[in-house]
């Protein structure tokens, strides 16, 4: 029988403009809270995974964090899988625990991406996501790459810009109700449509922001802490390409593969999921991943959103209930990890309130341009 791994602690900071905090400060704040929640002491942590930070590049980010945070783990690794890094670290933590290499793994992410660098520096970093031989000299950046994916997808499915905008509005509606979210003013489809053009069909409000923030979780071999532990029931990954020029015709095929693997491992089907958290760097990312993972029918995401299926209150499949990257904020690796922290909070709330919602959730993130994919299935009632 495969060994089990549980989320025993989860925490995140507020996201937004947090001047005065270094990337290490934000990592430490989130980690301290996650550790306290797990009920574990620093000496109990024998595994450490730390995500990259563009504003604090370092040869050994995990060891650096361990030194500052007072840890002496048996294994410590810096991890870099783009936007999928947060969930990839949780999957890896689960594997370390299952393999017996660690009992309690602290997963840490945090970056002062908004305050720690200029806007020009952010866009320059993002432009380097492209292939240096075949893409970067063309003069575009990540938003344009996702816009290309959107263009192809919309041509194939007939989805409109208003359909995409619906998801930005949904994420904002969730952020309005979330303490610590970067953007809490309600927006409408008209607001999204009227926002500044970035790369057609994407407008400013179709794109995630750049934020400061941190997030952390503790993955343990046994339930720990006073709160209900959630079991990591399934993990799945797929890494199909790095650059758009080398992407398969079905650019989201990696999501299908990762999702299927996670579900197979969990022994559950996608239709059983009670909640979902899907990476939303752009509205198109969210839409294409929802459909590739099987959570919406092809071309049906906007109709699901309009019908209230993804609503935080009353939805049959609440989605990114903190507001996601689009409105809670995106501080690099912690942006992706925040989806999981939020999921842990909501699943615990369900359990505490004896909710009738099925205690199963599905999470997915991509890194690059639909390049690297990680899916997770969390199971409550452990």
């Amino acid at each position, binding site marked *: 029988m495969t060994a089990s791994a549980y989320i025993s602690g989860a925490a995140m900071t507020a996201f937004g403009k947090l001047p005065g905090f270094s990337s290490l400060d934000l990592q430490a704040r989130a980690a301290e809270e996650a550790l306290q929640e797990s009920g574990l002491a620093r000496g109990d942590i024998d595994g450490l995974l730390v995500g990259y930070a563009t504003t604090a590049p370092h040869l050994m980010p995990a060891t650096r964090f361990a030194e500052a945070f007072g840890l002496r783990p048996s294994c410590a690794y810096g991890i870099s899988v783009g936007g999928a890094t947060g969930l990839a670290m949780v999957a890896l933590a689960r594997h370390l625990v299952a393999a017996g290499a660690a009992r309690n793994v602290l997963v840490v992410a945090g970056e002062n991406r908004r305050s720690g660098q200029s806007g020009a520096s952010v866009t320059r970093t993002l432009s380097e996501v492209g*292939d240096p*031989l*075949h893409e970067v000299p*063309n003069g*575009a950046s990540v938003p344009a790459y996702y816009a290309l994916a959107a263009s192809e997808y919309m041509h194939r499915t007939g989805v409109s810009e208003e359909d995409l905008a619906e998801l930005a509005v949904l994420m904002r509606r969730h952020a309005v109700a979330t303490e610590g979210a970067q953007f809490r003013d309600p927006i409408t489809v008209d607001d999204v449509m009227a926002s*500044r053009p970035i790369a*057609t069909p*994407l407008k400013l409000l179709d794109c995630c922001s750049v934020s400061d923030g941190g997030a952390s979780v503790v993955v343990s071999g046994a339930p720990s802490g006073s709160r209900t532990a959630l079991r990591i029931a399934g993990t799945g990954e797929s890494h199909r390409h790095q650059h758009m020029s*080398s992407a398969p015709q079905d650019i989201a095929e990696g999501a299908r593969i990762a999702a299927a693997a996670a579900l197979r491992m969990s022994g559950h089907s996608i239709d059983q999921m009670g909640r979902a958290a899907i990476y939303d760097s752009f509205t198109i990312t969210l839409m294409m991943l929802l459909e590739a993972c099987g959570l919406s029918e092809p071309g049906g995401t906007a109709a699901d959103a309009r019908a209230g299926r993804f609503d935080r209150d009353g939805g049959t499949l609440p989605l990114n209930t903190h507001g996601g990257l689009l409105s809670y904020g995106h501080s690099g690796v912690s942006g992706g990890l925040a989806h999981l922290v939020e999921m842990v909070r909501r699943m615990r709330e369900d359990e505490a309130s004896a909710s009738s919602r099925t205690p199963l959730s599905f999470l997915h993130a991509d890194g690059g341009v639909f390049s690297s994919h990680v899916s997770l299935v969390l199971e409550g009632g452990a």
Partner: protein
Amino acid sequence: MNPIAVEICDTCGRAQLTGGYACRSCGGTALCSKPVAGDCVVTAVTKVDRSPIESPVGTVPFYLAMVTLDATPEVRVMAVCAEAVEIGQPMTVTSSDGLAPYRLEALSCKRDT
């Protein structure tokens, strides 16, 4: 017209853009370079209104497109154009040295298809 440089896999015959050490389809390591004509079809396009660096066709706005080459349809090329293009439009992609920047130009003569 300047050709586009691609690599052909000796094992499976698939083509890909240059710069790899093995075939991305079958893993074969015998790759031979081959220049192919830039006749292509647009499969995706975006009008870029914000970009961190100037494109080879000037400042924003410019058009960025994905095209498939007629000679090797499995190869997708990202290319820029100063003028609007549409999905499905036949074009020609050119390069000064076989690598990016790739520029899209209108076909000089009408195609059969």
